[in-house]
């Protein structure tokens, strides 16, 4: 039971990160390797602003945290858009591999800058974990897990509705389907790509907030979750929003289950990636990926 909740909550975090990957991939057809590092920046922002509001202001703790979180979302969203404008937009129309390399460059850059600003020393802050635990029957479940799972679900449903129902969302679908045709229909492709990066980065900040109760902040915080979320996005079928959610939760649960047993814990990473390969061998387009016909 506790394993399931822990798994779900880690899975929800992976899913939120994977959503960013998948949306950017769908629209810009590029793997945004710097996505994990946006989480890192988000975590640092939350940390810095929380400490600032808690030490200076007379605000209650929750209000300070809320302000810090909202400001962090804004900063990360802007960061995502600036990234896109500076590093990826000049390369639109060039080989996607070129954009992949700049994404790697941006990732190194963010890590380097973070180390310069905040130092290499690990930081840690308690926000959601201040809520403590709730007893359900015999087991204690932490509130932060519950909030992560619930908020994650709300965000994912919201995102799906946004894409399906709103004008911008449908424009995003159109751009991911055929950029040229979308442009001819009067859709501002540049704007849509910016919006996509903004949403992806915003989700990454949520992921950072939910990740903070179990982890500590360091300049390399984002790299491994980033890769695992990438794997989650691929398991679910890259470009598919429900796919990212399914993939993320699957990976999170597998990770927590593997870590719980002595025999499997030192093979956790291998098991996760082996699962990925097996799924891809059975369904080469991921669990919920759309099959595209390849024509000559």
């Amino acid at each position: 039971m506790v394993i399931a909740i822990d798994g779900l909550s880690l899975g929800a975090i992976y899913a939120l990160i994977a959503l960013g990957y998948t949306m950017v991939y769908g629209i810009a057809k590029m793997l945004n390797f710097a996505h994990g590092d946006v989480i890192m920046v988000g975590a640092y922002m939350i940390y810095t602003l929380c400490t600032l509001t808690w030490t200076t202001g007379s605000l209650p703790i929750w209000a300070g945290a809320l302000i810090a979180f909202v400001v962090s979302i804004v900063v990360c969203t802007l960061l995502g858009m600036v990234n896109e404008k500076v590093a990826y937009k000049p390369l639109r129309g060039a080989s996607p591999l070129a954009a992949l390399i700049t994404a790697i460059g941006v990732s190194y850059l963010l890590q380097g800058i973070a180390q310069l600003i905040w130092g290499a020393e690990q930081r840690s802050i308690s926000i959601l974990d201040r809520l403590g635990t709730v007893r359900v029957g015999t087991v204690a479940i932490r509130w932060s897990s519950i909030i992560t799972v619930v908020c994650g679900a709300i965000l994912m449903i919201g995102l799906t509705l946004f894409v399906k129902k709103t004008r911008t969302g449908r424009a995003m679908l159109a751009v991911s389907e055929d950029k040229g045709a979308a442009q001819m229909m009067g859709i501002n492709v540049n704007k849509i790509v910016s919006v996509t990066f903004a949403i992806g980065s915003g989700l990454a900040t949520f992921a950072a907030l939910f990740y903070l109760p179990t982890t500590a902040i360091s300049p390399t915080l984002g790299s491994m979750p980033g890769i695992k979320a990438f794997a989650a996005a691929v398991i679910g079928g890259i470009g598919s929003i429900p796919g990212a959610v399914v993939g993320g939760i699957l990976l999170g649960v597998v990770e927590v289950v593997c870590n719980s047993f002595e025999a499997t814990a030192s093979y956790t990473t291998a098991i996760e990636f082996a699962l990925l390969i097996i799924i891809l061998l059975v369904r080469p387009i991921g669990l919920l990926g759309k099959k595209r016909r390849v024509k000559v």
Partner: protein
Amino acid sequence: MTMEGTKKKNLFAKGGWKNYITYIVIIAFLAIMIILNLTVGLGRGDKSTLARIAFSCILAVSLNLVVGFLGELSLGHAGFMCVGAYLGCFVANTLRDATALPELVVVIIAMIIAGIVAAIMGFVIGVPALRLRGDYLAIATLAFGEIVRCIFKNLKIFGGAKGMSTKIYNNNTLFILAFIVLLIVVFCCQNLINSKHGRAVIAIRDNEIAAKAMGINVTFYKLLIFIVAAFFAGIAGVLYGSTIGTIRQETFSFNYSIEILVMVVLGGMGSINGSLVAATIITYLNILLQNQLSGSLAPVKNIVYALILIVIVIFSNAPALKNFRESINPKAILARISKKKPDASVTRSDEAKWDRIPTKINIDEVLSADTRSGYADDPVPPGEDVVPMEATKDELYRPLDRKEEK
């Protein structure tokens, strides 16, 4: 891309030496280094840098076979290297204990065995490669690399977390050995690419279905390239072991695979010379930054490296900068100086404007098809029309896009 094969043949017919320019440059470079070492005496750091450059070049060239020529994105190249390094150095250690063979022979045997074992792993990962494409294959190869690492971490026979030690090859001759191996690898790759098989591989990259329709055995060639690339990566692993002396699994993480990929992309996909140059520059840059930015300046290292990477990639790939790139192209400048009519393939074009319309290629194809079939008195001679078209397609070539969009 069958073009390239025929082009190379023509060059060979015209002036043979151009075909060997790569070898000439490598040999000249090595000769200068050897002479310098014998006369002035190279520093130890310089010699190990040379050895590192050599095995980075081998890795980049072999990965270029997969990414540049076969057109499949692989993020697990360090995994093959890991297998090669562990197995090869294990064999070398055993041989050293059991026999009194000279060190050179031991390393050569180790390289061959490492290559073969890595090639087997190449076969193992090549099989799923037949089913997967594009980014799905990329993540599968990445996963493979991480799995290999995780397994070696848990194998006590290879030292587990503590890693494995092997003998460091004589510093004075290691770089010569490494460069000779590099020459052999480049020779094999060049010949493979320029052969019938190489043209088949390139045909698969350009259009798999068409290649299949032409009777090319796609399965065979895909596996072949994966196996050959893994073989060379395994050899590079042994060279790595002989240079560093300690083999630990965390070295071969996906970050290393990505570094090799960066070399390939910067050097130009499908250009062996480009891979060599980029591998040299990046390896040297890394060591230079490590050397210059020590102590409390170290965090700046990542930033400098990242900025260089971003600027180079944007500069050499951004569609908007195409005209600028052409204006500083040495060939165009030479042509301007000699007042010759510039080569058709480097003339300024209006492509920068066209690029803003994403459906450009389709429109191009429609237009050219129309003019050729519909108007007999086409003002453009057919021969001249075809060459620049092919050339521009080469340059705009994007392996991932193609798979997703067509």
